[in-house]
């Protein structure tokens, strides 16, 4: 039988039990009443014991959201989301906030252990500090003391709102305004937790920072908000990971991430997104609507986004850079893998405002099954952006003959000295390549993983070491069953 026919048949035989993070933790929860209203917003704010300015900020966002419409320009299709049938707040019941890991509910500790990320500092990957967000709240943050010695603030954003209101007020909403888009406005109204990082002037953050997001509760949306500020002459590397149980209904994840890089600051932000993708029929899975944006505010600042997107039923995500400071640099390295019925519309925006700003976009889209994978990107050079430079490379890889890959680049240049390059390729995993590997003794699934990892190499090598190995395995797992 020809490999292509075989491929399609094998794709159909994929079972959802390949998703090993699909378990549910049975833990006592506390939720807001179902649905969304001003009362929900007030409930969340009260639960978090927030100051009144924060509540006002949320309410303003909520009122604006009511006037907005869900965007429909992306190449994705999904059933309408019923916001009145979603819980906007769910938290494990815990009387007092845990002061140390010893006080964390053992059931939670077991959950993270099952996910392969032990919550005990001594067992945590050397040199990585982790914030654990379970449904709507942060349950633990490791290595805080060590970071504080260096002057780095790393804590749940709910805590930063109370303990560092000046910093939060100064920066939150400056990169992604509450009215920016439908999902960002929604997030601004109901966000529950997320991570906050502040690196003070001249500090090279001594370890990798990481947040691990887990959606557990049923019918619950996760709306996290992350804010990272790198002051002058600093460096910080941050990574996020995420998983969710297998459920038949779709769950909503609408996050906002804001990064601010001041003069000579560098932020490296890596994501390994592994939300539950739904089953092979397209039932269930996470709707992942995320707004991520960085402002390179200072001269010579640099922000680098690296993402490995393998999960979610629907992904709508465009990590972007506003290159305001002269000589600032933005980078976007992306691997998006879609299998079965998954849909991804992802890419980036590079907005060149300052002089001599540079950006680099490397996107690798891989489609298998009946999945649809779209790269959508904007490169814009404003009148003042003399000598702006961009290089974009979009490569698509198809596995089987029922999936789709699409590239939608937008280029707008208002400065004649700007130079913008775009390269795009589309290829298929060839039967010749698979046979060559198999003749050398490498079984077909391993062969496919090897070929795809080779295709993604330029992006994988941008990930921090600890994540690169994980990501390679994830690439292999996501494609399991897509050849035969």
């Amino acid at each position: 039988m020809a490999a292509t026919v075989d491929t399609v048949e094998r794709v159909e035989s994929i079972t959802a039990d390949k998703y090993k993070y699909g378990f549910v933790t049975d833990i006592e929860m506390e939720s807001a009443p179902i649905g969304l209203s001003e009362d929900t917003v007030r409930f969340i704010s009260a639960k978090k014991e927030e100051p009144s300015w924060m509540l006002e900020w949320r309410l303003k966002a909520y009122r604006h959201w009511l006037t907005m419409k869900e965007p429909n320009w992306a190449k994705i299709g999904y059933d309408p989301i019923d916001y009145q049938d979603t819980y906007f707040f769910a938290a494990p019941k815990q009387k007092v906030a845990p002061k140390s890991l010893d006080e964390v509910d053992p059931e939670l500790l077991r959950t993270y252990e099952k996910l392969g990320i032990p919550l005990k500092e001594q067992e945590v990957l050397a040199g990585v500090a982790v914030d654990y967000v379970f449904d709507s709240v942060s349950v633990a943050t490791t290595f805080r003391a060590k970071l504080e010695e260096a002057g780095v603030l790393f804590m749940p954003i709910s805590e930063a709102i109370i303990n560092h209101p000046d910093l939060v007020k100064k920066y939150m909403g400056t990169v992604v305004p509450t009215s920016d888009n439908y999902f960002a406005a929604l997030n601004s109204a109901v966000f529950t937790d997320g991570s906050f990082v502040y690196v003070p002037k001249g500090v090279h953050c001594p370890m990798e920072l990481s947040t691990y997001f887990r959606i557990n509760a049923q019918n619950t949306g996760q709306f996290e908000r992350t804010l990272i500020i790198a002051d002058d002459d600093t460096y910080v590397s941050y990574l996020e990971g995420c998983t969710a149980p297998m459920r038949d209904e779709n769950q909503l994840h609408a996050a906002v991430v804001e990064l601010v890089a001041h003069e000579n600051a560098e932020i490296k932000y890596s994501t390994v997104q592994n939300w539950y993708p739904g089953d092979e029929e397209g039932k269930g899975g996470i709707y992942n609507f995320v707004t991520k944006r960085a402002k390179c505010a200072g001269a010579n600042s640099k922000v680098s986004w690296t993402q490995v997107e393998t999960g979610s039923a629907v992904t709508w995500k465009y990590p972007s850079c506003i290159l305001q400071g002269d000589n600032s640099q933005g980078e976007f390295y992306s691997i998006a893998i879609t299998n079965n019925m998954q849909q991804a519309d992802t890419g980036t925006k590079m907005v060149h405002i300052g002089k001599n700003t540079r950006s680099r976009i490397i996107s690798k889209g891989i489609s298998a099954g009946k999945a649809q994978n779209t790269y959508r990107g904007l490169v814009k050079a404003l009148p003042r952006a003399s000598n702006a430079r961009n290089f974009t490379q979009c490569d698509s890889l198809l596995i089987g003959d029922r999936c789709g890959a699409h590239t939608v680049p937008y280029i707008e240049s208002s400065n004649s000295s700007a130079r913008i390059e775009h390269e795009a390729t589309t290829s298929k995993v060839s039967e010749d390549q698979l046979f060559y590997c198999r003749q050398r003794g490498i079984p077909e699934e391993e062969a496919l993983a090897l070929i795809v990892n080779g295709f993604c190499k330029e992006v994988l090598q941008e990930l921090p070491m600890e994540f690169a190995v994980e990501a390679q395995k994830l690439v292999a797992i996501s494609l399991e069953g897509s050849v035969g």
Partner: protein
Amino acid sequence: MLKISNLHAAIESENKPILKGVNLEIGAGEIHAIMGPNGSGKSTLSYVLSGRDGYEVTDGSVDFSGEDLMEMEPEERAAAGLFLAFQYPVEIPGVQTMTFLRTALNEIRKARSEKEIDAVGFLKLVREKCKSLNISDEMMKRAVNVGFSGGEKKRNETLQMAVLEPKLAVLDETDSGLDIDALRVVADGVNALRSPNRSMLVITHYQRLLDYIVPDKVHVMANGRIVKSGGKELALELEEHGYAQYEAA
């Protein structure tokens, strides 16, 4: 070692018979050459032996050291000790040759319930093999066959054969695309791998390769069958008279 009996095979999509009753027996340590004109079925035989998709075996059998070769997946055949040196080695962008070959060796070891080799041990092994074949190990750092010259690709095939240590190596038109110097290097490599427990099946158009890799037996293939067998002198005879007399048959 290898016994091909009355093998019939067709191209699946076209339902077109290519092999029409091939009989061939190769003993341990023997080198056999198959010569024949274009379209006689030489390359098809190498693909059918190695299990490539797209060919259907309609009759006959192949016994490989007591196992029914046609029942096995391509990777199982590799683990059983079958190696095909490709006429056109395939490029795999982004995959380092070192990684590729170590994955292959370890998959074969796993299939044989042997212990896997670690990165350090593998590096040592490769360096030894490169040295014994007089091949630079520089190409191990490059992506598999990407940007390789014709000669480099064939040297890479020879090196892979040396590392995987097959019982039977099928060399499919190893001389194609090689100038005389490159041919000599590759042939020297192949000769270095001759051993009493390694058989080889050399498929070629031209007698030239057989000046360097001297076979024990030469077979002429025409129209999907082996029509004549003899010693190494048969190759010289073919060089002189061509294939016309066999094609007419």
